[in-house]
Every structure is written in structure tokens, then in C-alpha cells.
């Protein structure tokens, strides 16, 4: 009895889960594996269309005699690089109409013209003509002829499915692509974006947790950048930072902090001298990092605030009895209570920042030293239109991500045992 019940339960569970699992598998997991396949192929954006035979039908009258018409089919191979083999052509005519002087490649039976065109090379074009006449001498309805579309079929290799593989893409990724700088930029962006977001998150959470009036409003307002659409926010920032008419530059100039406007998003380096040491700062990258922090510190803030509010008040009261100062309370009570959530946040944000594409793309488009790995996937795949290369970069990203996740689960697992 219980056996059949558990069987039923299993079957129910699978029917409930299966649709979701299949969909996620098709759209999320399959592409990750497909990336591996594509990354070993020498394939470009223009190759991915499957070549197909096409025909455009034009109907012309040849003489005064309306019972005879000429039909021109403009035939072509849609692909510029691949051949189509075994092209079949078929067109249908109304009753009583038959072709005259039919091309030897074709034959006419039961109102249909069927042709066998054999192989079409890449860029193949031909104007194929059929003259038709009405057997009982009446006028042929041109529109009826025109509205009947010819059917073409042919076999072509899908370049995605062919089995010639190459290691070229990975060679290019590692040797020709300034890979080290790419990696450094990505890590610089990811690390400082993450740390900045968490620091600002802790600060904001501490502030909001001080029992101020309108705490919920403040919490809502602080989350605005996180929930707002990235397109709108990025363009607003571009406007704010604009060197010619941007508000920020105008303010800084007005306060005499800088002498002339700085192109914060378009300048790769800025030389600063602090205490007599001159060093170069990656300006555009730093600006993008600040945007990143601005947009994502709310998430850190929210989690840390939730944790802060869960700390039992009795701990602080006990500290008050012991005569602890506010700083001591923060270091010895608050900080240990939020380290767990901070380490989780660090890892989650690290992974998400590592994959960040939209923010950088919209602010700088990857120019002036802000090219990170995800931006490079887009540039290789769609700007240079080298799909194989783009996939290879994706594979590098996936590999690095898997490494992070293994580290993450190791650390979190250990922490779970400690607690």
C-alpha cells in the first residue's frame, strides 16, 4: 500500500517538476554546453544562417495573346558561402494550363511543375523561365498565377553541426587578445565593486538601524537604484558626468575643485599626485566601479539591515551595563553578528559583478580601459562577429565561475559546520 503511494507521489512529483526543468534545461543549461561546441569552431556571425533556396516569381505577358504568359523565377542561393545540394522546385498551375517547351530539368504532371536543379554553389543565381498557355485559348488570370508561391527545398549543411573543430579560438583568446590585461581589468572591477558595495551597505544599514524617524521610507529610497531599470540609470549618469554640460563637472568647476571639466567616462588614465608620489588612476574604470557601487550597495544594505535587526537587543543592554563605548559595541557585538551575511554577500556579489555586462556596456561600451570579460564576449561575438571566439571567452568565464563556486561552497560548508 505505502509502496504504491510513494510510487504515485514520485510520479506526481515528476509531472509537476518536469515542465520547469525542461524549459530551464533548454534555455539555460543547453547553451552552456553549446558554448563548448561553438568555441571549438571557426564560425562567424554570417555563417549561422542555414542556406536556403529562394525564388521570386514574376509574371509577364508575351504578346497580345492573353492566353499565353511567361513566368520568370529569379532563383538564388541565400548563402554567400555555402552550397545547397539537391534543390527541388515545385509550382502548381490552375486547371487547363500547361507549360510549353519545358526545361529538361523539369517535368509536368497533374497540374504541377516539378524540377530537379541539382546542386547550387554559393552565390548561385539563375533566371528560370516557363512559358505557359491556356489549353482552351481563354485569357489566363495573372493574379491567380502570381498568388501561387513556388515551393523549394534543398539540403544544406548547418555550419553549426559540422564536425570540423579547431583550437584557434582558444589560442586567440589567450595569446592575441591582451588576455592578462582583460583579466586584470575584470578582477579590478569585480573586487572593488564588491568591496565598495559591501562597505557602503554596512554604513547605510548602520545609519538606518539607529531608530531614526521614517526608517521604512529611508529603506525604500535606498533601494531605488537597485530596482530601477539599468538603461535609464546608466544614461542619467552619462548625462551627469558629461564633460561639456554635465552637472557634476559644472559643480566641481564652480567649487574650484578642478580647473577644467574632466571626461570621467572617456579618459583611460588620470595622473594624480598624493604626498609627492605620482600615480596613474584608471579613471573610466573607477567611474564605472562607482556606478556599480551606487547601483548595488542597496542589496548589501538590505541584507545587512535585516541581520542587524535580528540581533537581540539584550546583547547591547548587557554591553551598556559593562560600560562599553559605541565603537566597542560595534566591533565586539555588531561585527561578529554580520560576518556570516557579509561573507555570503561578498561571494554572491563577486560572482554577479564578475558577470556584469549591461552597466559597463551602457556607460562606456567597453572603451577607455573598461573592457571586461563579459564585454569581450559581446565585442568578439557581435562587433567583430566572430561567434567562435565569443564562445571561447564565454567558456573562460564559465570556468572561472565554476572555480569561484567550488571555493564558495567549500567556505560556506565550513562555516555551516562551525555554526
Amino acid at each position, binding site marked *: 500500500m505505502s509502496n504504491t503511494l510513494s510510487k504515485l507521489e514520485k510520479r*506526481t*512529483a515528476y509531472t509537476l517538476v518536469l515542465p520547469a526543468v525542461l524549459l530551464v534545461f533548454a*534555455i539555460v543549461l543547453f547553451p552552456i554546453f553549446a558554448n563548448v561546441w561553438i568555441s571549438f569552431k571557426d564560425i562567424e556571425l554570417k555563417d549561422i544562417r542555414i542556406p536556403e533556396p529562394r525564388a521570386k516569381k514574376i509574371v509577364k505577358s508575351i504578346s497580345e495573346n492573353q492566353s499565353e504568359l511567361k513566368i520568370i523565377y529569379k532563383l538564388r542561393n541565400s548563402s554567400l558561402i555555402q552550397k545547397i545540394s539537391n534543390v527541388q522546385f515545385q509550382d502548381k498551375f490552375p486547371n487547363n494550363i500547361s507549360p510549353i517547351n519545358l526545361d529538361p530539368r523539369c517535368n509536368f504532371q497533374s497540374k504541377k511543375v516539378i524540377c530537379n536543379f541539382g546542386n547550387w554553389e554559393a552565390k548561385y543565381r539563375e533566371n528560370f523561365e516557363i512559358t505557359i498557355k491556356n489549353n482552351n485559348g481563354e485569357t489566363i488570370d495573372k493574379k491567380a498565377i502570381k498568388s501561387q508561391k513556388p515551393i523549394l527545398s534543398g539540403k544544406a549543411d548547418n555550419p553549426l553541426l559540422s564536425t570540423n573543430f579547431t583550437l584557434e579560438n582558444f589560442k586567440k583568446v589567450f595569446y592575441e587578445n591582451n588576455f592578462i590585461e582583460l583579466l586584470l581589468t575584470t578582477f579590478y572591477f569585480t573586487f572593488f565593486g564588491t568591496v565598495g558595495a559591501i562597505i557602503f551597505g554596512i554604513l547605510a544599514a548602520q545609519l538606518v538601524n539607529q531608530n531614526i524617524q521614517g526608517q521604512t521610507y*529611508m529603506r525604500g529610497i535606498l533601494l531605488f537604484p537597485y530596482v530601477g531599470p539599468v538603461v535609464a540609470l546608466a*544614461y542619467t549618469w552619462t548625462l551627469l558626468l558629461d564633460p561639456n554640460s554635465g552637472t557634476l563637472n559644472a559643480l566641481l568647476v564652480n567649487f574650484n575643485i578642478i580647473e577644467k571639466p574632466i571626461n570621467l567616462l572617456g579618459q583611460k588614465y588620470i595622473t594624480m599626485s598624493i604626498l609627492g608620489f605620482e600615480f596613474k588612476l584608471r579613471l573610466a574604470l573607477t567611474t564605472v566601479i562607482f556606478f556599480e557601487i551606487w547601483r548595488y550597495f542597496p542589496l548589501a544594505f538590505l541584507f545587512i539591515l535585516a541581520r542587524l535587526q535580528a540581533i537581540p537587543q539584550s546583547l547591547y543592554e548587557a554591553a551598556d551595563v559593562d560600560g562599553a563605548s559605541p565603537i566597542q559595541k560595534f566591533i565586539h557585538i555588531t561585527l561578529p553578528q554580520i560576518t556570516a551575511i557579509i561573507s555570503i554577500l561578498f561571494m554572491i556579489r563577486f560572482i554577479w559583478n564578475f558577470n556584469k555586462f549591461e552597466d559597463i556596456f551602457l556607460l562606456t561600451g567597453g572603451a577607455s580601459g573598461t573592457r571586461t570579460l563579459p564585454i569581450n564576449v559581446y565585442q568578439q561575438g557581435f562587433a567583430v562577429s566572430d561567434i567562435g571566439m565569443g564562445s571561447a571567452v564565454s567558456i573562460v568565464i564559465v570556468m572561472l*565561475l565554476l572555480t569561484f563556486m567550488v571555493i564558495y561552497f567549500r567556505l560556506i560548508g565550513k562555516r555551516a559546520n562551525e555554526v
Partner: protein
Amino acid sequence: MSTLQGLSFTNLNITPVFSICILLSLAFVLIGKKINHSIKIFSLSFLFSILYFYLNEASPYWYILGVFLITLFFTNKLKKYSTESLREDFISEKIIFDFITLFGIVFFAFVILFPFYIMLVTSFKTQIALLVNPLDFSLDFSKSLTELFKSYFVIFETYNFGRYILISSAVSVGTVIVTLLFAIPAAYAVARLNFFGKNFLSTSILIIYMFPAIVLVIPLYTVFSQLGLRNSIFGLLIVYTATTLPVAIYMLQGYFKSIPKEIEDAGIMDGQNWFGIILKIIIPLSLPAIASVALYVFMIAWNEFLFSLMFLDSPKSFTLSRAIQYLSGDAETPRQYLMAGSVIVTLPVLFIFVYFEKYLVSGLTSGSVKG
């Protein structure tokens, strides 16, 4: 720099203002609890405003009103300070922290809201006004309404934004419906039923959520091109559903687990099958959670940019985000149009967020706070 002289901060007398501040704070502490708190803060703020006005005669009246309100806000915070309280332990540290808190709140509120304000103000301006004075943050209400909302009229008439709003709404609402249809049964199974591979499934849900859209883009682009799903709203809907499903399942199963099992047992006794249980027991009991997932998915789909950038290249099927990006691609497009578009795409999301904040915040935190 003559164009930047509209609002100059440099002629404010910072030092005298600062000394008045200190004097007033001292007076405040010395008066202590001798007078009623509200009378005290009102009179002191008033005094400060008058002195301030005396020092900066050039300032307009609304500016003085602002100064008065800010002083009121700050002095109100000083409530607990008096001569007695100054003898408490660590009082200097406490005072410093109080002020850091105050300034911090103002700082954060400013940093967050300023770009949004700029977005709004810019959308109501003209090209010339923008170039002449970037520091003019005011709105000119003396203009006629059609003049004020000109950018909005233009983007609706010339750039077809009505259509994009429709497409964006259709895609987002569609994504919500399809995601819930898939996620509710799956989440129920993960939360309640025993089956082989359950643990594997629930961990893989989280791992999949970590995987970025950017690594999916190239294969999906190629496959969708070959299937003719690019430039179609349907294709976008599939991708959005699949990418939001993991988080939807994760959030829902957490809530389903908290529903007492006895209620379901009662349903089983009544001879309900799983379909009946989900429809008649689980869904009515977890409406708040479902609502928060729905809103969350709606916001993700509405804000999504990467896939709409990759998959849509004909203006007939643009979503709002993609349309704004397309607008900005043309360097000639005046920026007030861009900002008007941004306001249109931002407003619904902020509205939903502010209105349903409680649901959304609990949804956002439900996962990680436990860990």
C-alpha cells in the same frame, strides 16, 4: 565659465554661519529642559534663519525657508542633550555618532535621489536651457503644459513610444503568467513531495541562478536565428521565463514549506488529487508570496536589457529599454528625449516598488537571511 554662473555657492559666508551654529548648539544645551522642546527648537531655528538671512542677503525666500526646515530637523535631533546628559559615559563619542548618522542619512538620500531628480528635471527642459546652465535644477512652471511636456509628446509621436510601452508590458505580464504556471507546481513538488533527485534539483536551482546571461547569449542567438525566433516577442518571453524560473521556484518553495502539512492532509482526506490541492489549498494560502514573486518577476522582465539588445533589431519589436538604447545610438537625439524615455521606463517600476515595498523586500531577503 560665464555660462556656469547661474548658481554660485562660493559667495556664501561659511565661517560666520559656522560660528552661529556652534553658539546656537551651546545655547540649546544650556537651556536644557527649562522650556518646552518644540518651543525651544522653533525659536532657535527661527533665530538661526534670521541670522542666516542677515549674512546672505542675496538668498531668495524659499532658500531661507529651506534653511529653517533643515535647522528644525537638526535641532529636533538634539532633544536628549542637556547639561546633565553631558556627564554620561562616552558622551563625546555618542554625539559624534549622532551627527555622523544625521549627515550620513542626508548624504545617502542625496546621492540616491539626485540622479533620479536630474532625470526628471532634464526631461522637462529644452535643449538650449540644458546647454546654457547645467546647474539650473529648477522647473519652469510658467511655461504652458504642452511646452513643459514637449519631450514626452515628441517621443510618443515621433519615436513611437506608445508601441514600446505596450510591447514591454505584454512581455513582462506574459513572463509573469508563464513563470507562475511553471513555477508553482514545481515549487510544490520540491517543497512537499519525495522523489529521487530532489536535493540535486534544489541545489542546482541556486547554481543555475548564479550563471550569467552573457554566457548564454551566443548559443541562444545562433539557435534563435536558425529557428526564426529572433525579433519575436515569443522568443523573448521564453528566455525571460527560463531565466526567472529558478529564483521563482526558490522563493515559492520556501513559502510552501511554511504552510502546515495538516491542511493538505485534510484535503487528501476529502479525495483531492494534487491538482486540487495546489489549486484549492496551496494557492489561496500563499497569495502574498505569489504576489511578491509575480512583482519581482515583472520587475526583472521589465528592466531586462541584455537579451532585448541581442534579440531585437527591428524597431517593430523593441521593448522600452531597447528603444531607449536605440535612441541614444543616434548622437543627434536631444538628451531631454532620452531622459523622458528613461522617466517612462523608470516610473512604473518605482511605483510598483514603493506601493508593494513590504512584499518585495521580504521576497528579496527571504533567501539569504536564513543562511
